[in-house]
């Protein structure tokens, strides 16, 4: 006999128990610690913090463990946690010019004040599997030098002095907050950058790549890419001045884009900007390219109909938590909608069949 699908509750409990068991895996293998993930899976932790919009390496590591290494699931855990946190205020804008750089490169100048610092990059590694890692070899200590004193100026400032690059307009108005107000289009640049900073890395990469291949090509050079720690300061009303409340690691990318001028602007270089939590340079460069593509309107360029130029398309589809939720929801039961479609299709077929029969008879 048919029994209505009962026992959903028990099925869920059992599924959760099985999931926990699978998460742990073979118990003869030592369990992974949060500190191990935080220290040894750092780039995953950084991505989870960036797209989760919450700077907390321990929580990000916990989320990665809980999500069994599924980073979008881990980002989701962080986002859901983040929304429950009270908000004490907004920090001062961080000064990336005062960043303690681990890495700082420019593709536009061979040498420059502050120097080229390669830092801990995969860039020139040969992508050969290192079997020594499988045999848990100790790592020799990397050579060190004393930290260079003083700030590291931005490359775009040099170009700025000559008037060769557009001015980055100063704007002291409070930026909108994507996490507290519904997204509204058209979105200004501050809101677009905010959305891109937590956008899915893969989606942003794909869009940025499309601009390089000709869909709104904007000839980007990496003027500068820097990775390092900046201090975060917050105004304390009771004190009447700002104090340092902590430090975050950031990746900043400024692109210098060729620009032949438009109806409204003279020929000069233009800017694309990317700023992301952690060591996340693929994302930061992608963000800068997409940012530049989205600026076509303010620079008086033509809308060539490229996906990366379409702010509404980009902003409404860049969030992987929204996207994955809606995509995966089609796993939920749709008996009712499907049933109504079944009836409709049967009805249409039935009538089409009747018509054909009639035509045949005529």
């Amino acid at each position, binding site marked *: 006999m048919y029994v209505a699908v009962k026992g959903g509750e028990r099925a869920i409990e059992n599924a959760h128990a099985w999931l926990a068991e699978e998460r742990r895996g073979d118990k003869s293998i030592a369990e992974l610690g949060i500190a191990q993930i935080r220290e040894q899976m750092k780039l995953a932790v950084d991505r989870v913090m960036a797209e989760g919009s919450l700077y907390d390496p321990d929580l990000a590591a916990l989320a990665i463990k809980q999500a069994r290494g599924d980073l979008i699931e881990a980002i989701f855990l962080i986002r859901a946690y983040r929304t429950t946190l009270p908000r004490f205020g907004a920090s001062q804008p961080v000064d990336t010019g005062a960043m303690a750089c681990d890495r700082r490169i420019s593709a536009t100048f061979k040498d420059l004040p502050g120097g080229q610092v390669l830092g801990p990059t995969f860039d020139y590694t040969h992508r050969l599997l290192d079997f020594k890692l499988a045999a848990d070899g100790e790592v020799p200590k990397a050579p060190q030098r004393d930290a260079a004193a003083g700030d590291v100026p931005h490359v775009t400032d040099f170009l700025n002095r000559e008037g060769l690059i557009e001015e980055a307009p100063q704007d002291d108005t409070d930026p909108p907050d994507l996490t507290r107000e519904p997204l509204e289009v058209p979105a200004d640049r501050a809101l677009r950058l905010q959305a891109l900073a937590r956008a899915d890395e893969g989606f942003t990469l794909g869009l940025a790549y499309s601009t390089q291949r000709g869909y709104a090509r904007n000839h980007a050079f990496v003027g500068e890419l820097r990775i390092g720690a900046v201090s975060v300061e917050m105004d304390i009303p009771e004190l009447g001045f700002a104090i340092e409340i902590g430090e975050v690691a950031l990746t900043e990318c400024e692109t210098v884009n060729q620009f032949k001028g438009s109806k409204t602007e003279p020929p000069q270089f233009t800017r694309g900007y990317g700023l992301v939590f952690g060591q996340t340079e693929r994302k930061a460069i992608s963000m800068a390219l997409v940012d530049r593509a989205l600026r076509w309107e303010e620079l008086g360029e033509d809308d060539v109909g490229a996906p990366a130029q379409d702010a509404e398309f980009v902003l409404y589809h860049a969030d992987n938590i929204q996207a994955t939720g809606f995509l995966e929801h089609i796993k939920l039961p749709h008996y009712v*909608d499907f*049933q109504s479609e079944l009836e409709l299709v049967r009805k249409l077929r039935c009538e089409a069949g009747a018509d054909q029969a009639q035509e045949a008879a005529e």
Partner: protein
Amino acid sequence: MTQYNFAYLDEQTKRMIRRAILKGLAIPGYQVPFASREMPMPYGWGTGGVQVSAAILTPEDRFKVIDQGADDTTNAVSIRTFFERTAGVATTTATSDASVIQTRHRIPEEPLTEKQILVYQVPIPEPLRFLEPRESETRKMHALEEYGLMHVKLYEDISRHGHIATSYAYPVTVEGRFVMDPSPIPKFDNPKLGDMAAIQLFGAGREQRIYALPPYTKVVSLDFDDHPFEASKADHPCGLCGAEESYLDEVIIDDAGGRMFVCSDTDYCERRQAAGHVGKLGGKDAA
């Protein structure tokens, strides 16, 4: 889960949602933007409905959750459990005992009363979205009451198929002004939207919209003089309770094409069976 606030959301978020609900009630059928929060369940799985429920529930409420009309489908169970844990509300599966009912894709068969609130989970709140993907454009269309495109689409269906080929999420006009998406309920349920005694609230989390129908609101399914709206269902009685007037799910019962039709509203069906109504396949082996 004691570290979380009553009904999970913080008070400021609830206030923001409550303000949106009031504006929604004041402008029936208009989609109020709201700053939807990330919830501990995925977007697309009822986060809009969950946020609306969280903003309206009180400890005195009795909460019912249905998905596809059923109380015991997994996502309904999951949402019900969430509110049992975070709001400590009593829950029920009996439609008539519930003060707040959260639903996905159905309106209960049993008429609702003035003491009840129906909260819909909405995936795509914009009825014009599939005709015009841009929010900036559809917003203008609503502002200008420019709904010609929707009528053209429906009429194209008629000229091609002889029928309007929309069977669920069938658009309605509210109080002669806003065209509204009733969420993916089958069009069988559309006539219940208007003149309902209960308050109807619609929450779309991912799309960040809340809208509402106050009780006894005039709701008209879009149609044409020569092709009036028709609420349809499978032309069978329920195999378990014999109901002739309820919306039915089709269930495949063997691998030889055998199937049966049963009420999608599980509470309605169980009550009828308890009252002695028996369908053709009730109480004996169907296969």
